[in-house]
Every structure is written in structure tokens, then in C-alpha cells.
């Protein structure tokens, strides 16, 4: 990564991670640690799903990334610029939706966007109208541009917030729970929009407590649990962390379990027959090859009725990482 020549130095600068943090920590005045030493690494061009249950520290992290809250310790950088010190230098390259939409209810959608655009010192006032129209068009709100924000539906409010992040060409978009409160139709629309934004080469950082929402669009994921980042990496890597299990349907599960254990498979378990479901023996496959396991079972005289290797669903992995519901600590 060390640059030796001038052009290479420029390359490393542009290839700086879209978001990085090291030891980022937020301790609230009451002593509660909301974010605990997290090291984010969001590659440029990725769609990064920032997952975790409600109250796991996602929003606090995003607030620190955007310079809204100051970290207790640790540091963060957006597009290679240190935050919060570089806020005024880098944030105009970053679009964001933080903790739900917020606009003046007595202004129209377009006027609300014009207000935020006026606050941007690097935005060209001459192109403001055109850019606002384009952003509204992109989220499908052009027809409601002259309607007061107070009369917007929840989905329209959410889309207007996304539009405010699209007022300028951005290199990074940070979306905090963009589908919160949306109906399935709205959720699909937002998902399509995120795909579109990502297709333009913009890095997207999207936080959510819904795995299903993220699974379909993300290339990378980070999983938060009670303030700690318990997993981070490409989505396929998360899939790989799940240990595949081999399941054998047989009339004699105890004998099958013995064979599995003898083959060095861990965590062999027996499930008795129940109704139409045959009795099963199961174990973690590990490094063993399924073909060999099956052959050994037959060799040992086990009547194999069914044989399956199953990887855990992403949902299971997610719950395994974040814990079942209702155990949000703190």
C-alpha cells in the first residue's frame, strides 16, 4: 500500500476506503457505551449493509461518521478525510439520510430541498432548480414537488429524504434505516433506488435491522451487537462462517451418530422420528467430504434413507451473531 511514485500516491488517495474507523467509541454521559471500539472498513464501490438490532449502536455510529456526534475515543474518516474535523471539506461529497426524514412541515418538498441546497457552500445556485427537479424526479416525487411536506405520506417523506442526499453527484451515500415505516411496495422502490445509485458507482452504506432487506442488495456486511462490530466482510464470507451440517435420515439414528463421531465429525445429535419425519442423526460436516461420509455410513450397514448437507441460512447466522430478539442490553 505504500506509494513510491507521485501518480501512485494519487491512486491510493482516490482508493481510500469510503468509510474507515479505528477504535471508534462513544460513551454517553451516563456511562453507557453505545459504540465500542469499532473498526469499519467500507471499500469504495461497495454496497455495505450495516446490520444490527435496534439499539445496537448503528445510528450513533452514523452520527459520529457524519460529524454530528463527537467520538469519545477513536477516529473515523470519510473518503480518506478525517471526521469530524474535515466535515466541511468532505460532507458535500456524501449524501445522507439519518434517523428518518426531517423537513419543515410548512414548506413544500421542493422548497425544503432548496433550503438544504442553499446551505451547501459548494453548490452552484445557478443549477439549483435543475438539480432539485432531477433529485425529485429520481425518487418519483416530481408530481408532489409543490405539495407541503406536512401532507406527504410516510413513504413520500422517506423518499424526499433520499432526494436530499441526491442533490449533487455523490461518492458516498449513507442511508440510516431507509425503509423504516415503508410498506412492501415502498421497500421495493427504495431497494431499486439503492441498486440504481450503486450502479452509478456510488458507494452505499445502508443500515438496517432487517437482514432480508440488505441481503438482496449488499456486497459487504457489518454486523453490530450491543455496540460492537461482531462481523465485517463480503457477504459470501459471512455465509462461509456458518458451519454446514450433514443430516442423515435413518431408522437407526444412534448407530449413524456413532459412525459420524468415529469419522471425526463434531456435535453429533440424534432426533427421534416424529410423525412423517424420519429419525435423524446430524453433525457438523467440517472438512470431511460428504461423499466419503455417505459411503462410510453405508459401509457400516446403516440404512440411509436420506442424506443432506445444509448450510445455515443467513438469517440463522445473523441471529447467531446478534442474539435472539428482546435481549438488547443497555
Amino acid at each position: 500500500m505504500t506509494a513510491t511514485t507521485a501518480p501512485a500516491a494519487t491512486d491510493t488517495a482516490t482508493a481510500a476506503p469510503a468509510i474507515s474507523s479505528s477504535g471508534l467509541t462513544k460513551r454517553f454521559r451516563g456511562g453507557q457505551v453505545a459504540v465500542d471500539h469499532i473498526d469499519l472498513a467500507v471499500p469504495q464501490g461497495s454496497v455495505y449493509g450495516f446490520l444490527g438490532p435496534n439499539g445496537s449502536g448503528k445510528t450513533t455510529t452514523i452520527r459520529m461518521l457524519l460529524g454530528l456526534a463527537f467520538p469519545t475515543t477513536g477516529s473515523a474518516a470519510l473518503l480518506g478525510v478525517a471526521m469530524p474535523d474535515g466535515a466541511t471539506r468532505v460532507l458535500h461529497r456524501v449524501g445522507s439520510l439519518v434517523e428518518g426524514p426531517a423537513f419543515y412541515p410548512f414548506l413544500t418538498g421542493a422548497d425544503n430541498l432548496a433550503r438544504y441546497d442553499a446551505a451547501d457552500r459548494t453548490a452552484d445556485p445557478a443549477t439549483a432548480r435543475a438539480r432539485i427537479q432531477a433529485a425529485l424526479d429520481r425518487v418519483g416525487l416530481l408530481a408532489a414537488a409543490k405539495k407541503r411536506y406536512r401532507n406527504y405520506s410516510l413513504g413520500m417523506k422517506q423518499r424526499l429524504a433520499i432526494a436530499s442526499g441526491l442533490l449533487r453527484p455523490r461518492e458516498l451515500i449513507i442511508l440510516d434505516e431507509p425503509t423504516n415505516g415503508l410498506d412492501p411496495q415502498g421497500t421495493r422502490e427504495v431497494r431499486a433506488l439503492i441498486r440504481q445509485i450503486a450502479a452509478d458507482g456510488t458507494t452505499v452504506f445502508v443500515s438496517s435491522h432487517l437482514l432480508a432487506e440488505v441481503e438482496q442488495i449488499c456486497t459487504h456486511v457489518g454486523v453490530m451487537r450491543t455496540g460492537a462490530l461482531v462481523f465485517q466482510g463480503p457477504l459470501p464470507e459471512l455465509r462461509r462462517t456458518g458451519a454446514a451440517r450433514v443430516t442423515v435420515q435413518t431408522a437407526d439414528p444412534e448407530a449413524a451418530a456413532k459412525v459420524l463421531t468415529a469419522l471425526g465429525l463434531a456435535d453429533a445429535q440424534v432426533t427421534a422420528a416424529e410423525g412423517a419425519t424420519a429419525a435423524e442423526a446430524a453433525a457438523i460436516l467440517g472438512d470431511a467430504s460428504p461423499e466419503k461420509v455417505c459411503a462410510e455410513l453405508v459401509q457400516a450397514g446403516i440404512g440411509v434413507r436420506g442424506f443432506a448437507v445444509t448450510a445455515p441460512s443467513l438469517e440463522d447466522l445473523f441471529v447467531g451473531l446478534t442474539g435472539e430478539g428482546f435481549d438488547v442490553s443497555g
Partner: protein
Amino acid sequence: MSAASTPAAGAPAGPGVVTEAGRIPSPVRAFGRLFGAELRLVLLRRRNLLLLAVTAVFPLIIGIALRLSAPRPQGGNGAGVAFFNQLSGNGVFLTFIALSTLLILVLPVVVAVVAGDSVAGEAGYGTLRYLLAVPAGRTRLLAVKYGVIVTFGLCATFIVSAVALAAGAALFPVGPVTLLSGTTVSLAAGLVRLLFVTLYVAVAMAALGAVGLAISTLTEHAIGAIAAIAIIVVTSEVVDSVPQLAAVGPYLPTHWWLSFDSLLRAPVDTSALLHGLLSFAVYALLFCSFAWARFTSADVTS
């Protein structure tokens, strides 16, 4: 701040640079744009228009009431009393009567509404986090907010003077102005003095606006901030009227507000005026600094 450039694509190299989004305006122009947008928002907001309308109605009511009642040379016991005796002879004095009457509560409350709402209102709506993420820049946003408060106070004060002058001219005779010290100056010279009186009151309101701005950075409940400012004004006036507490009087925020009557004497009592202006400057500086220190270091959690 914007001078430091990054080599990454899309970063501004400085003002005037053309990017795919257009031309980057100069910092001064960009500041003017934000200030203009915020000022329009505050001035055109229905609630604030109503406040200005109420402010304009007061001088009218005072003028009509005074016209209907016979002037009583010995009446009253307040600070603005001296002007009442002059009114029957000259309508210009309605402006001073209106200003000194409205300074007790109406003008401070009008300024308090806009000042208290300035930051707390944004926090309450949640728009503060989006403005900062734009990024508006914390110091820059605070400067714009204070500029809008000062401008709004200036508007309110000039509305009082203008309406009172018009009403005074309609209801009473107008001519050369006999000052409180007994000397008579031409109408034009009297109007110039009126201009300075109005500006003095506007500066007093600007100082109050700084107090309001500071309080506004402490909460996300605009109504709480507005109430707190009003309470400060009333408390200060009460304390100022207790003779046993005369020692603290000159340090109170409201103490010098009515000192504009110095401008209605010949020669002008500059010592009281300068004391007043010094007091306003100290209050503005102190509370703007406090607001800045607070606003640039506090987490935005709304």
C-alpha cells in the same frame, strides 16, 4: 476552511472551479445565499409575520388612545413618561412613546420568539442534523442564525418607529421638535434623532438576540427557550426597579434599554448612550461566544 483541497475526484479546488455540478460560488456569495434563504424563511413564516403585524398594531392603539384622552401633564410614573407631555404638541413623540412602551415586553418577546427558535427549533424538527450533514458548517450556520435574529429585531424596531411616526403625523400636529431639555430643533433634525433612537433600540434587541441564541443552543424545545428569554427580560426589569438592588442595575441586560432618551436632549448625554452600547456589546460578545462554544462542541442528538 475550504482552501484545503484533497486530490480525490470531485473535491473542490477552490471558488470558481467548474465541476460536473456547476460552478462553485465564492464563500461570500455562498454565505449570502444561505443568509438570504434563512431570512426569507423567518420573515415569510406566518407566525413571525403575525408577530410583526402585532408589533405594528401597538403604536396605532397607543396613538388613538392618547388622542382620545386629554393629555395629563402630571400623569404616569414610568421611564418613558417625559415623552407623553410632548405628544400633544408634536406627533413625532408618538414614536418615542411607542418604543419605550413596547420595549417593556412586546419587542423583547418578538425577538425572543425568533432567537429562541433559531437553533432549538431546528433541533426540534430534526432539520439541524440535515443542515450539518449538508454540510452547512457549525460556525457558519450559527453566524447566519444570529444575523437573521439581528435583522429581524431591526425590522421589528423600524416597524414600530415607522408606524408610530405615520400614526403620530395623522393624529397629532407635526413640526419642529422641542427636545426634553427644552431646546427646539427642526423637524428634519428631530427625524435624524429618531433614526438614531431606533438604531439604538435595534442594537439593544441584537444584544438580547445573542442571549436568546445562546439559550437556544441548550435545548431542542423552542418554546422552552422562548419562555426562558422572556423570563430573563422580566426578571431583569423587576430587579432593576428594586432600589435596594441598585448596585447590580447597570449590569442587567435591560438596564440601558431606555437610555435612548439621552438622544432627545441637547447636548446629547453621550455617557449614558456609550454605557448602554458598551453593555450591549459585552452581552452580545459574551453570549455569542457561549453559543459558539456550545454549538461547535455539542453532539446533535435530535
